[in-house]
């Protein structure tokens, strides 16, 4: 039996793992895709304290992984299909149908990027449609691209793409951006960026690869086409809570409701990071949640076993 099983190997899960293992708990992290989480998609993280020159998401997560490993966390590449609560003993069911028993669970499965759900999006994924400018930007050197969205991620990635692409259209459905001011200032000052407000993407067009997007003016309904070879989509995230929704209390948007000890509605089951209801979703806050969840899981074990 494990003391704690952590679901998800992003910043929240890796930090929870570090704290739990360092506290002497038998700890396992299950990660269905790749350790590191969403921040692997970010080229530069310049708001994680301790790195005044900034650091790439990949290097930062390399460090998180090494530090968790140092304290003896077990890690596996298995997705979690469901969890079961039988009071003191809890079960985690893996995608290969193995059932593991544990005293506590920390849900740190994060969030996934929203899709546009328009024609062409699926067909051209990997053929011009991308959710990761850091990964794919280099394939668009000297070519025109579009970024869809108006939040922090959209602007950060648009600014990154401006170093490579010949032109970056930023398509946003509202008449103003949601991103923080410092990013807006940098974006408006960048000559390669062109803002297209009050427009939504109706279709991603192409032949073998993307060659344009069809956009609609939300005020007039007028359609027009932009000649672009890449479309980078940053229109928010959806929490990965489907697999726990029968057991765990969620808010109306699907985020897990926790108290200030990261406890969910079920004793011994905690949640941390982007997956929970919180006013800020960052690496720092995810890590902080992970630390609190692990430490409270340890106290729960001391009291109940």
């Amino acid at each position: 039996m494990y003391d704690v099983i952590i679901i998800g190997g992003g910043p929240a899960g890796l930090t929870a793992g570090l704290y739990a293992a360092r506290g002497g708990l038998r700890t396992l992290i299950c990660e269905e895709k790749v350790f590191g989480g969403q921040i692997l998609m970010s080229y530069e993280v310049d708001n994680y304290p301790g790195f005044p020159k900034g650091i790439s998401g990949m290097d930062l997560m390399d460090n998180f992984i090494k530090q968790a490993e140092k304290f003896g966390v077990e890690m596996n590449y298995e997705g979690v299909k469901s969890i079961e609560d039988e009071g003191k003993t809890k079960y985690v069911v893996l995608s290969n149908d193995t059932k593991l028993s544990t005293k506590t669970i920390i849900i740190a499965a994060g969030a996934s990027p929203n899709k546009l759900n328009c024609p062409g999006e699926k067909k051209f994924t990997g053929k011009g449609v991308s959710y990761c400018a850091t990964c794919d930007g280099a394939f668009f050197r000297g070519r025109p691209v579009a970024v869809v969205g108006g939040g922090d991620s959209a602007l950060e990635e648009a600014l990154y793409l401006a170093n490579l692409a010949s032109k970056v259209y930023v398509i946003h459905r509202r008449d103003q951006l949601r991103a923080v001011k410092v990013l807006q200032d940098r974006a408006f000052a960048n000559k390669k960026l062109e803002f297209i407000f009050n427009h939504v993407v109706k279709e991603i067009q192409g032949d073998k690869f993307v060659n344009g997007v069809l956009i609609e003016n939300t005020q007039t309904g007028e359609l027009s086409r932009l000649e672009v070879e890449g479309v980078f989509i940053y229109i928010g995230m959806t929490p990965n809570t489907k697999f726990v929704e029968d057991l765990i209390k969620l808010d109306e948007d699907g985020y897990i409701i926790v108290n200030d000890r990261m406890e969910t509605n079920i004793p011994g089951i905690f949640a941390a990071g982007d997956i929970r209801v919180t006013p800020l979703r960052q690496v720092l806050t995810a890590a902080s949640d992970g630390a609190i969840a692990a430490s409270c899981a340890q106290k729960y074990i001391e009291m109940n076993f």
Partner: protein
Amino acid sequence: MAEVQLTQSNWEDEVLNSNIPVLVDFWAPWCGPCRMVAPVVAEIANEYEGKLKVGRLNTDEEPEIAVRYGIMSIPTLMIFKNGEVVDQIIGAVPKEYIVEKLEQIL
């Protein structure tokens, strides 16, 4: 079996003329998800030793091959059989998803 480092010069021998299927991992040093996918690919190389060849191609160093196969997104995993692309997986995906695809063609 160790993974093969693929280049333009060994591409034909190692991939196109291979007598067993080949899984090619297209990656680049600046791609975070690529670096993190590497251990999964290494696990697969071990588990399928003798049945599958696993190769890695750095798209920065070998752009011609990346262009030839229309790579616009990495990581991309391509499965070759008798010199032909029989399947491809774009982006970081669960290991079981890769295994499922492999089982279909092996």
